[in-house]
């Protein structure tokens, strides 16, 4: 038994070393740097970078923009996914569609973003089609969908990437939760089609997938490749803005980049804790049932 105990604590230790230690050490370094305690061109302890970041608008507008992009992407995806999962439920289980729906999952963000750029930019494929068919008078009458102020290109790309995921998720929940049976039950009590959707199907699907939905919002907020290719200087998503602070032009901006990354990590951690305490069930184990 002693041996088992050792393996157990060894496993725990290994877990801590791999999962916790790197993030912790990284945060320590970033903190020291953001206060200019380390760093060869830094002159000693100062809180000015933190003041700049917290009081300035750049960081908060990046976070705000990232949040806006994430919410839009996830909400639009949910609408499409629910519509598809519910109206095509049989075909999603069998046949060509059931395989085709997986195809977009083969696309990394980088590839989808590159494709969207070539497809939706002013001189992209769609604009060329428009010009050839006479719909467009010239290149400038095509709307700005890439590098635009509202993150339209980023949102479209994210929607295309995550909608299939939600379609599959909903289609699975629909079957594992046996929603069909609930619906039959409700129908016998005289529920209308509309009521079935509003009172039975949607609540079950959304409740069962709620944590996954929140997690996706966080993922989209932190995305890097897509806004790097399709975004613009302002407004900028948080990952791109942070990397840029650390790698561009002004050396004296690097502590600000680190301060931004710490704040971002803290925000994500608090959201996670919030989710954890609100959705204990989700995190509860099968083993302790």
């Amino acid at each position: 038994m002693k041996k088992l105990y050792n393996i157990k604590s060894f496993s725990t230790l290994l877990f801590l070393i791999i999962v916790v230690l790197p993030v912790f050490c990284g945060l320590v370094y970033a903190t020291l740097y953001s206060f200019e305690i380390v760093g060869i061109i830094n002159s000693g302890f100062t809180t000015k970078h933190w003041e700049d970041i917290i009081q300035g608008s750049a960081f908060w507008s990046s976070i705000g923009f990232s949040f806006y992009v994430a919410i839009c992407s996830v909400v639009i995806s949910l609408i499409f996914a629910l519509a598809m999962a519910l109206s095509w439920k049989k075909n999603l289980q069998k046949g060509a569609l059931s395989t085709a729906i997986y195809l977009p999952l083969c696309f990394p963000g980088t590839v989808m973003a590159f494709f969207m750029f070539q497809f939706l930019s002013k001189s992209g494929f769609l604009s060329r089609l428009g010009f050839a068919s006479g719909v467009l008078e010239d290149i400038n009458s095509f709307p700005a969908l890439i590098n635009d102020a509202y993150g339209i290109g980023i949102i479209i790309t994210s929607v295309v990437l995550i909608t299939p995921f939600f379609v599959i998720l909903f289609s699975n929940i629909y079957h594992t939760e046996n929603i069909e049976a609930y619906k039959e039950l409700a129908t016998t009590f005289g529920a209308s089609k509309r009521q079935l959707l509003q009172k039975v199907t949607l609540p079950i699907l959304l409740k069962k997938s709620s944590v996954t939905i929140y997690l996706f919002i966080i993922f989209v907020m932190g995305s890097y490749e897509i806004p790097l290719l399709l975004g613009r200087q302002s407004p900028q998503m948080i990952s791109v803005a942070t990397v840029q602070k650390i790698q561009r032009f002004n050396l004296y901006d690097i502590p600000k980049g680190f301060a931004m990354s710490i704040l971002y990590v803290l925000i994500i951690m608090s959201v996670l804790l919030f989710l954890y305490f609100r959705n204990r069930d989700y995190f509860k184990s099968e083993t302790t049932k």
Partner: protein
Amino acid sequence: MVFSCGENKKQEAVDVLSLSWEDIEQQANGKTVTMMMWTGDSKINAYINSFVKPKIKNTYGINLEIIGGQGGNIVQILMTELQASASKSDVDMMWINGETFYQLRQINALFGPWTDKLPNSKYIDFENPFIGMDFQQPIEGFELPWGNVQMAIVYDSAKVENPPMNREDLLNFVKANPGIFTFDNQFTGLTFLKALLIDIAGGGEVLQGDFDEEKYNLYSQKLWAYINQLKPYLWRKGQVFPESVAQMHQLFASGELWFTMSNNDAEVDSKTAEGLFSETSRAYVPDFGTIQNSHYLGITKLSGQKAASMVVANFMVSPEAQLEKMNPVIWGDGTVLNMEALPKDMKAKFQNLPSRTKAPQRSEILHKAHLELAPMYMIKLAEDFRKKIINP
């Protein structure tokens, strides 16, 4: 322990510089040199990959490895390495100039002075202020001149008959033709802004020397006022600027823009030969002038391959390599060599290079060349451009 380690490094640095050139070449044999450079131009990449690399491999047995990166990227890597007291750098040499050189000197990340050691340095025109000074800073043997260029504006002569020659012309032109002119938000665009700043200040002499905050504030205010006048008529109404000069070239090639810019006066020829730009593309320098500057090669202080890097650098400024590089269909990068110092037959070869067909001759635009400003001007312009124009 740490102390002795530092001592060793110093020792080694001294050693390379005290060796004879023959010994350096011998030491370089079989080594791999990692060079970090801007890889945003396929012509330049082709010159490095299909001319420089094989020559160096065959002549000196050195493998040259290229990694992409420029400016802040280089500085950030070297700075973190110094901070982590790394024993060796990931990067041996890099293509730099201006504010990167200034920042690298500030953090003491460059090896030197080493340029006198190179046999080919005797051909270099160090006396020329456009070559021997980098953004108003003496290079002091810490970087080696590699190429010299003057910024030019490229336009499509099928669409633009008389390109605008001064600020007022430009404003009127974009008002009449909105959406077809812009500049990128990196080096090329900033260099264009510098030329405007010099023009507003009333000539190159006014801003010579170290960074002068008072002058900067005075003239940059006028510059931003002018840019704000242009802004509504720029590409995408000045709400967004191309992310890189490569993107701007693409927009020009696809016809979305009528103008693009190049930090290299001869680039229009190579880009047309490549098939990217239309045959009707031309380059010109407006009356307010453009900046002429040089770009350089530096070696990192923590490089483990200083000898081999010096051999590579020596080859890159050899008349042979400079001649190839200057050919307008190869790259079209101006040479840093002093024609008078070259052997006669070499000089003749330079003079017989195929001439530019779409770009003006260097001699015609030389009188419109401005010297670079101190690096702080560029850093400030970049910051204010972001604050006042992109994100007002």
